[in-house]
């Protein structure tokens, strides 16, 4: 069973600026959970496209209600890979991001296409798709719900992070209230998701005596 999610994002900066910001997006006030960042592969193809692989370490933020269902030995840090292709001739960038650790518990795969906004050529459109799945017996539905909710929160943080970095690049001082708004929204989303997922998890736990 796979949860699918798609959305379109808009950044009011040029495609060039967004691609530059893409490589400079960490750290930002919305990325405290991202611990390390490394380019582990990079090349320019004969057709002059830049291909890169980035390895990220992130904190493994399982909520407390979930922790009691998970193995005690589970690693605290998660590893994520992000592959990207930048095509300067066609002015497109494609990225694919997925976790290479904890994948059996929950797998999140995200594909993005960055292109010039057709209605305003000085803006950038991001077409985002995600697939969230879990193979953990008895808990898949709860974990997928949690995963989807957390992914939506992450998307909001990603866009805020981009806007922050782009504003800094262009010499503007990012507004602090943007940060506070983002924090409030993230807290609200997390709370709703927590209650929903908790309910699903306790139902599952009653049905199957797992762990």
């Amino acid at each position, binding site marked *: 069973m796979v949860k699918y999610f798609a959305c379109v994002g808009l950044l009011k900066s040029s495609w060039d600026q967004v691609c530059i910001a893409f*490589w400079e997006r960490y750290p930002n006030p919305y990325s405290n959970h991202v611990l390390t960042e490394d380019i582990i592969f990079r090349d320019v193809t004969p057709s002059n496209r*830049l291909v890169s692989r980035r390895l990220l370490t992130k904190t493994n933020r399982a909520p407390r209600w979930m922790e009691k269902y998970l193995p005690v030995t589970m690693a605290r840090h998660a590893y994520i890979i992000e592959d990207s*292709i930048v095509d300067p001739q066609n002015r497109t960038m494609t990225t694919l991001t997925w976790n290479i650790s904890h994948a059996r518990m929950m797998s999140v795969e995200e594909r993005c296409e960055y292109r010039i906004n057709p209605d305003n050529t000085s803006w950038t459109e991001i077409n985002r798709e995600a697939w969230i799945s879990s193979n953990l017996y008895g808990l898949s539905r709860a974990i997928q719900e949690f995963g989807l909710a957390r992914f939506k929160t992450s998307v909001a943080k990603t866009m805020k992070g981009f806007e922050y970095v782009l504003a800094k690049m262009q010499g503007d001082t990012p507004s602090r209230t943007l940060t506070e708004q983002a924090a409030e929204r993230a807290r609200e989303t997390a709370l709703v998701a927590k209650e929903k997922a908790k309910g699903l998890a306790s139902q599952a736990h009653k049905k199957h005596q797992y762990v």
Partner: protein
Amino acid sequence: MFFICYSQTVYGYSALKMNSVGEGCTELKREYDQCFNRWFAEKFLKGDRSGDPCTEMFKKYQHCVQKAIKEKDIPIDGVEFMGPNKEKRDR
């Protein structure tokens, strides 16, 4: 708790850069990143194909970080570029 984390990062914020997964590789990573960011913005995106001035720096950085990846047993091997779960995506 989120608010406390934010105010902690604000103090030295402009000086903050990311660390490498290999603790001893962070300096090499930052040097390479600086070179790459300049080349990317000023040459690559502007269609200048005159070649990458960062190859030596990249080699040193990679030598360090690939070693750290092996030591920490990070499962990066055999993962095809843009490859995972193709059947899931082609719908």
